[in-house]
């Protein structure tokens, strides 16, 4: 078993945080092998951000992803750049409010993560909504592991918000 997941968007969306939480869920709570790498521009906000997570049940050698099993695109630029770099049958999850132009031949799962997060009261949890959706769709980590990893990664006063963001994401994916 080996899942290669690429999460991308722009700086400030919490793309890297999402990848770290996913990796932590797998490595710390599900007892799997996981590896996370990232790349970002020199800016603290804005610019392109990309994070990759590999989850496996065996040691991971090459610490990178060529073709992804799962792509989460949270910006048009991210989608345009990476939607072809996926394996056949890959799961593509996009925020349709941020990705306007896409290849109609490739099926995607639209998750209005930013809008859902806004409805929950804070757009910063759009990344967590996406993680909920990703987990519901792919099962790469258990929902319990994801919840545990999320809650220990955010400040205490934001735990409830994040828990609701995860649930909303899972619902959005199954709905």
């Amino acid at each position, binding site marked *: 078993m080996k899942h290669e997941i690429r999460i991308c968007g722009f700086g400030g969306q919490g793309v890297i945080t999402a990848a770290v939480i996913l990796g*932590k869920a797998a*490595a*710390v709570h599900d007892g799997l092998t*996981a*590896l996370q790498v990232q790349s970002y521009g*020199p800016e603290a906000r804005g610019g392109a951000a990309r994070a990759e997570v590999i989850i496996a049940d065996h040691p*991971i050698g*090459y*610490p990178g992803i*060529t073709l992804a099993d799962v792509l989460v695109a949270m910006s048009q630029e991210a989608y345009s750049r990476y939607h072809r770099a996926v394996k056949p049958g890959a799961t593509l999850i996009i925020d349709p409010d941020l990705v306007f132009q896409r290849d109609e031949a490739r099926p995607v799962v639209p998750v209005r993560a930013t809008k859902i997060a806004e409805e929950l009261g804070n757009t910063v949890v759009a990344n967590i909504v996406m993680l909920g959706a990703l987990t519901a769709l792919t099962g790469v980590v258990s929902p319990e592991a994801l919840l545990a990893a999320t809650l220990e990664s955010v400040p205490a006063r934001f735990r409830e918000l994040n828990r609701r963001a995860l649930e909303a994401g899972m619902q959005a994916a199954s709905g």
Partner: protein
Amino acid sequence: MSTHRELIRRALGPRVQFVQGDDACAYGAVLAGCTFFAGYPITPATEVAERMAEILPRIGGCYIQMEDEIASMGALIGASWTGAKVMTSTSGPGFSLMQENLGYAIMTETPCVVVNVQRSGPSTGQPTMGAYGDMMQARWGTHGDHEIIMLCPASVQESLELTIVAFNLSERLRTPVLVFIDGELGHMRERLVIPEDHEFELWERPRATDRAGYRPFAPGPDLVPPFAPFGSGFRTFVTGLTHNEEGLPRASSATIHDQLVRRLAAKITNHLDLITRYEEFYADDCEIAIVTYGITARTCRDVVEEARRRGIKAGLLRLISIWPFPEHVVARWAERVRAMLVPEMNLGQIVHPIREAVAGRCPVVLHSRIGGELHTPAELLEALEALQWQPA
């Protein structure tokens, strides 16, 4: 009242974590008993300093951010002479600045650990991208004749473990030890299991016990002199000048210089059994070998497995200790294989001592990659396949 070991455990947090290579180096240092860190921020090594700044005051140690890397290395040596286990971390430009004081630590037999999270150069280069551009600077960067010890982890877990080993070697042999990772590994997160105290050894520097007739640089039977910390009444004079066994300057004596510098080198080369570390895959029937180190070795492991599936008798020699160069290990492989592929994230540095060790017994082909990206499995497999047509 908690013991110091209990404090360390509490400061490090949960036993299983998902953290970066930089974090793991800091954790390894703390587990090894490091209580002093002096450093200067630099991408991609800053997280090592950040972790030390968080942890050290919580366990009663000391973190000091110096004005530059020259000062960091100086403060490190000063602190080590009080008896503390000490570490700094940096990247290429900072490592360049540390060279003079690194030599001072060698000459004065001062234990210290230097982590270099390498990035590309020359000069400012690509600050956020990984590279292995300082492999030769590590060996020959400081002026004068010397030996150096350098370890190259390939994973987050190994970053922790080899940092402990680095402290052990540094204390035991009273010499600086380098832990060299790169920006990719430094910023890569993996599962890290913090080992229990019974799962690793801790070595301490040999201590002087008797003040009467104490000669601070008179070597013990293993060529390492017993150490007396500043303030213990042994009244040690430490100088970077050529010195006699009393520690007093004898800069014009050819004999004393010859004896001192040869002993400093020999105390390291006589202990290769303690230092040399490597990992072998398919050594028994290997025909085409990959010889590499650091993060690149992970990719090579995948490549060798894939090559085996394709019927190529490939193997991998992963060097973990780079300096002193494990010449005998490479030479042993050279006896058996038809060719060696050496992937490096530089324009070819460790390929040179490899060629020296191979001494013409088989072709040694460099596969160089610079620019901040790792070698891909596909390109290395292609390179390996091309080599299988080497005549036996």
